[in-house]
């Protein structure tokens, strides 16, 4: 049996940063890249199933350029069996729908029994990719999964979802399915040095969208459901440092309260 784990090399923006010249993203010079936090948990869920059962293959997949290979190396170092990276420049700045379409094509090729994705990405936070992937594949899905009970080969999985107000929903999902995993479902492992070293010698399968049977119209700009118009820092809030003697400060606070509250 096979579990497909889609992962993302997420951007961690530095304290002081600049935007890209086109104003639609952060300048990559001010970004640190690391495996999306949620994907640590979905990978761990897959690895725990692998360890508890014989004959499970865990395949990590990402859609991204050369810089995203580190995310896959991390997965391999922790214990994923294989890794696949799909890229074409036409995918740059793609929205979650396009990424999901590419991942669905990978899933079609790999024919996994289960897809475990992160609930969301730590940088853009659409929470859409995994769910959209299920939609393209016509598979059932469950989002924000905080517990998973699944026996390999079973026709269904029992999952628990986190709802508002501390509520939980226990759900039976038909398999194969796409589950998007929430933080806290497990304690992600760290890679050992042996794992890191061994991961260096495992080849990463690199595929183009073309090889997956995807046309430009499936993944190009016209295929996107949304386009980033602008990324910007909102104007500063109205915080004000009040200086002066305690009496002056008190007077200023009173004036502000009066101004804001009226009267």
């Amino acid at each position, binding site marked *: 049996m096979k579990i497909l784990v889609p992962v993302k090399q997420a951007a961690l923006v530095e304290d*002081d940063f600049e935007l890209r010249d086109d104003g639609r993203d952060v300048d990559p010079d001010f970004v640190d890249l690391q495996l999306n936090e949620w994907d640590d948990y979905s990978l761990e869920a897959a690895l725990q199933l692998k360890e508890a059962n014989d004959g499970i293959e865990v395949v990590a997949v990402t859609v991204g350029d050369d810089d995203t290979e580190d995310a896959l190396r991390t997965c391999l170092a922790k214990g994923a069996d294989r890794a696949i990276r799909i890229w074409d420049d036409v995918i740059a700045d793609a929205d979650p729908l396009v990424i999901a379409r590419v991942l669905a094509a990978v899933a079609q090729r790999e024919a996994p029994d289960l897809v475990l994705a992160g609930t969301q990405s730590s940088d853009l936070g659409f929470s859409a990719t995994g769910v959209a992937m299920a939609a393209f594949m016509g598979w059932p899905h469950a989002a924000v999964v905080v517990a998973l009970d699944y026996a390999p080969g079973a026709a269904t999985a029992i999952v628990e979802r986190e709802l508002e107000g501390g509520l939980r929903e226990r759900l039976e999902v038909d398999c194969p399915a796409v589950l998007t995993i929430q933080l806290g479902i497990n304690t992600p492992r*760290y890679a*050992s*040095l*042996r*794992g*890191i*070293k061994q991961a260096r010698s495992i080849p990463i399968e690199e595929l183009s969208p073309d090889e997956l049977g995807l046309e430009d119209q499936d993944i190009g700009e016209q295929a996107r459901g949304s386009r980033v118009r602008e990324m910007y820092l909102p104007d500063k809030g109205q915080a004000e440092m009040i200086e002066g003697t305690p009496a002056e400060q008190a007077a200023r606070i009173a004036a502000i309260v009066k101004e804001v509250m009226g009267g």
Partner: protein
Amino acid sequence: MARDSRYDILFTPVQLGPKTIRNRFYQVPHCIGAGTDRPGYQMAHRSVKAEGGWGALNTEYASIHPESDDTMRISARIWDEGDVRNLRAMTDAVHAHDSLAGIELWYGGAHAPGMESRCTPRGPIQYASEFEALTYCKAMDLDDIKMVQQYYVDAALRARDAGFDIVYVYGSHSYLPLQFLSPYYNKRTDKYGGSIENRARFWVETLEKVRHAVGADCAVTARFAVDTLYGEDGVEVEQDGMRFIELADPFVDFWDVNIGDIAEWGEDAGPSRFYGIGHQNDWIRYIKQATKKPVLGVGRFYDPEKMVEVINSGIIDIIGAARPSIADPFLPKKIEEGRVDDIRTCIGCNVCISRWEMGGPPMICTQNATAGEEYRRGWHPEKFEPAGSDDTVLVVGAGPSGAECARVLMERGYTVHVVDSADKVGGHVNDVITLPGLAEWGYHRDYREAQLEKLVKRNKDCQLALGQKRLTADDVLQYGAERVVIATGSSWNTDGTNNLSHAPIPGADASQPHCLTPEQVFAGDKPIGKRVMILNHDTYFMAPSLAEKLARAGHEVTVASPVALGEYMHLTLEAPNMHRLIHELGIEVIGDHACSRIEPGRVELFNIWGDGYKRQYRGPGNLPRDENRTHQWHECDTVVLVTGRHSEDELYRELKARKDEWAANDVKDVYLIGDAEAPRMISDATFTGHRLAREIEDPNPQYPQPYKREVHAWGAAYIPGQSHELIWRL
């Protein structure tokens, strides 16, 4: 990154008479254990701070004449041409970084016992030192005064020849000029005693003579305790303090001021347990009212915000610092480069001072393991030798030694994994900082935590894995690291094993509800009764700190201690206020008593001197002294065992036992550091981690490499023209 413009004032120069300091960072005179006899150490320690941006660097107190001899403590000396030659190494190296070099000319009076020179110290009157044991001085007559003043002048000229830019006439810490000034010492009735003008006369005249001698070659200053904290019996800032400033002002180029005396100089070098940043401000803020000359002061200034604040609020003009400059020789540069979060903040533990107090060993620093190792081991505080290979390293334990070892290894470019079962970096420091007054010791953890987080980002293959299950020997062997560092720390003994009996105390058992180890007190899981008995065999802070913690929580606390309670705290200057606190909290201390038995509800104590003074041979099986019959039961609800520690080294020992499996697992070597090797102070644990990281690819790195010793080598003249031959004077 550029520096924050808020700190600009710190980087503006100040005119000090004929000299200019390039910024506001001034390393005040402080001891390091180098003096004049370890010129390499002196040169390297001061000049690395000049490289790190300090605008002026001073020697420690420098004796002007063999009459002022502080043996066994280590001062600098500027007695002769040999001293000039040795100190020249420091001034040249400091000047290479455009910083000023200063020397603190010192004459101790009765506080310097003269154990090497066997000269008789002179003082304003004859008094017995309150600081030194069994030392009296000779009262000076007018000839003596002229003679000693000439010592200062001659020493100042030698200092000038050695290349010093700043010459002190040092009076703080109750040394000779202040002995004349303070009525606590000076009971003279001639023109050098009585009125403030008369009491100031010796110091003012000396400053004038030194000023005249060095002319424009050196800036002249006095280090002056503006309040000796004795009330009317000594110098009070708003009385004699400000008046002396006015009287001596014409002869100095700037003022270096502080508070306190020598017998309790922890009131000046305030430990963080009792004093925070800027703790002298309420006294030294008066000085600028009495002088227009630049004023510098101290107060463990490590935070640039506070530095700017004391300058902008007109308390001082220049930031004086000793301890913050030891903890981070690059403090100014880090502020200048906008790297404030990289500052290795002084934790105020005063372990640096403890070494001077004990009289000889080189200074150490809890935060900065390279302090004192600059010359002899060649350790730069901020620069590292590149990794010698691609070997990867697993560090088990992120406490003081493990975190430091990993930090330095990562700085060298090694791929390092740190694994700890705790959720935080810092090991037992995380417990220690919950003790009353010790929160600032947490800077030790904070620095390493912040640096490790940065370094892990720099090399993605590095890892800081916290909250992990404890690694077994199998885990370690299979981990894939070529080198393994075991830094698993130590624990307090659960059975009362201690330094006197080297055996458990009968009935001591921390698995019982009424017996607790310090760790169990920290964990807070076991109830603690109203009446607490602390059994202490540890000579540092744990027993007094736990006593304070428990007394503040409402327990009736007794400490039975066969060793001097908090003895090491005398060396860190924490003891006087610790004893005041123990008194204030009503904690009972039963000294010279050890425990022979523990039962629920009571402990049996005995006087350790109760076995009779007579010794005789009584045959095998018989003690040579009488049976100790001083045993008495003391009731208590809870017993806390501060009796001793043991290394948690099981993992290391198992790995060593399985050495034949190393090669098959690509393990080249396994090392043991920190408390896991032997329980010790945080500073020494940190050092062992740092040391291993620097030497990990040297021969047999478990054991330190030889370091450069500064010895007076046979056959080499110390004073020019001096012979090393034995020449009898016949």
